[in-house]
């Protein structure tokens, strides 16, 4: 098992942002974590990756308990996250941004830069883009840069936090292809996503988070027909009103 989260709880003041959530991600799979806005998805990611201390529960990565480890320790073990709101090293060039990740493997500057170039190619960044300051990138470019930087660290498990938000259909189509290629190269992927057709076409298994609780899990087809999921997105009673096509309701949520 690549990742195993057991009964994780995260409390902010009086709010249980994540409430007794458990999930598993098997090696080589693409697993999605979905849920309405404010469900606690990003908080759960932050807890898994060590950015936030957990109040209760355990995170196991490759069979080892990593709960409470420092972010950089977890990252070096091979679990790396991206940020929903992209966090580029703004004044560094795109290539230098990626090379920061490459330096985890390559001590020499020249090696890291060369490695960064191959990674940029893998995520479909044109060579002309590499010398631009990261601050000048478009949203699509920044999302790709997030992906490239994490990929450069040679991760075993990628936590992708809404890498498609703000992209146009063409860009989404491209990034879906890139994510598939990354998985095919042997990297396991857990992603948070709101773009439902992407979730449906990419993921093999889906967890649904609502008010901090995992309310459903299963294959994409099972999830779209799940009453609880439809109601979580559209409100109580919505599943009945949707009648024969609950799946549509989820797709457009």
């Amino acid at each position, binding site marked *: 098992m690549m990742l195993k989260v057991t009964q994780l709880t995260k409390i902010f003041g009086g709010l249980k942002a994540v409430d007794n959530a458990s999930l598993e991600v098997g090696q080589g799979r693409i697993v999605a974590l979905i849920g309405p806005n404010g469900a606690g998805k990003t908080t759960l990611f932050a807890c898994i990756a060590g950015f936030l201390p957990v109040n209760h529960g355990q995170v196991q990565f490759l069979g080892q308990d990593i709960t409470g480890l420092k972010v950089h320790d977890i990252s*070096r073990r091979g679990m790396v996250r991206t*940020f929903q709101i992209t*966090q580029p090293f703004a004044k*560094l060039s795109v290539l230098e941004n990626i090379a920061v990740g490459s330096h*985890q493997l390559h001590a020499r500057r020249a090696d890291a830069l060369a490695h960064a170039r191959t990674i940029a190619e893998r995520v479909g960044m044109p060579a002309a883009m590499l010398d631009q300051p990261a601050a000048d990138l478009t949203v699509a470019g920044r999302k790709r840069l997030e992906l490239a930087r994490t990929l450069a660290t040679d991760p075993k498990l990628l936590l992708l936090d809404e890498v498609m938000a703000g992209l146009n259909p063409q860009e989404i189509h491209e990034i879906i292809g890139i994510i598939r290629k990354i998985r095919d190269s042997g990297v396991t992927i857990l992603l948070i996503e709101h773009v439902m057709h992407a979730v449906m076409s990419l993921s093999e298994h889906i967890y649904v988070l609502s008010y901090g609780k995992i309310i459903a899990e299963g294959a994409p087809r099972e999830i779209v027909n799940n009453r609880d999921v439809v109601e979580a997105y559209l409100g109580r009673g919505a599943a009945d009103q949707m009648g024969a096509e609950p799946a549509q309701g989820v797709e457009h949520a």
Partner: protein
Amino acid sequence: MNAVRSPWMVHGFLLLLALLFPLVFSSPFMVNFGVLALFYAFIGQSWNIAGGFAGQLSFGHVAFFGVGAYASTIVQMRFGFNPWLGLPVSALAGAAAGWLIAVLSFRAGLKGSYFALITLAFAEVFRIVANSVEITGGGLGMLIPMKQTVANFQFGDRRVFYFIILALTVISVALALWLKASRFGARLAAIRENEDSARALGIDTFAEKTKIMMISGAIAGTGGCFFAQYFLYIDPSIAFGVDKSVEMLLVSMIGGAGTVYGPLIGAVLLAAVSEVTRAWFTIQGLSLVLYGALLVVIIAYLPNGLIDLFERRGRRRGGS
């Protein structure tokens, strides 16, 4: 990338100019000016590698300078060390002070302006301590007796000081060049730009920041030793005065923070302003007024520092 070869020509040329300077301009005024400019460049580089390269903006960098100055003077005066040994002693003392301040403030998660303020506070605490304990001579300071022998780090020809501080400055520039081309430097740039991203990519930000503060502290500490030996006198307000902290960051920011040569350019300008105002006017502190005006102009028109005038290609400051 294609600018890799030509810098060695530039380095050689600059070094030659610096070596010839005291031979051409041998008047005490000009030699003193050269020493001062290089001294500013040296301690400015100390601020620059922490503040410019790693984004740890300190307002109390004089703390390291003062610790170095006192460390070397105390081991010489109280324990009879040879003053040459003061150089490594002050470097170690400066590094230790850097470690202390870094560990305490970074453990507490202080960043940005909070870090700037805590360093300012540390420098003040050190000043007060130096003022009140016996080993530093308290408010009277310490006077190093005049005895001009080479073994005593005192020279009849002031130009020897010039060559010593030139050597130290060359070392500091070499260090900055290495940082620009190394993994450590790339990690520092990442930390400066976005600490959360740096952590996410596996960088131990606490360790890296602590390391650079120790290196920076060692440089400033060595600068303190040089200063004490050059003027043969230190007291708490010289060793830990806010004005020197301001000068260190001004040198770097006016020249171009985060660049290798910025502090050199800033230092020459600052030394010129300081010496000219001292020579032509009798108003005390006028140089500080001019520093302020200079900073305003620089921030308004050349936010990346004077180095922008030299680097026509408009290259950004970066990790490579």
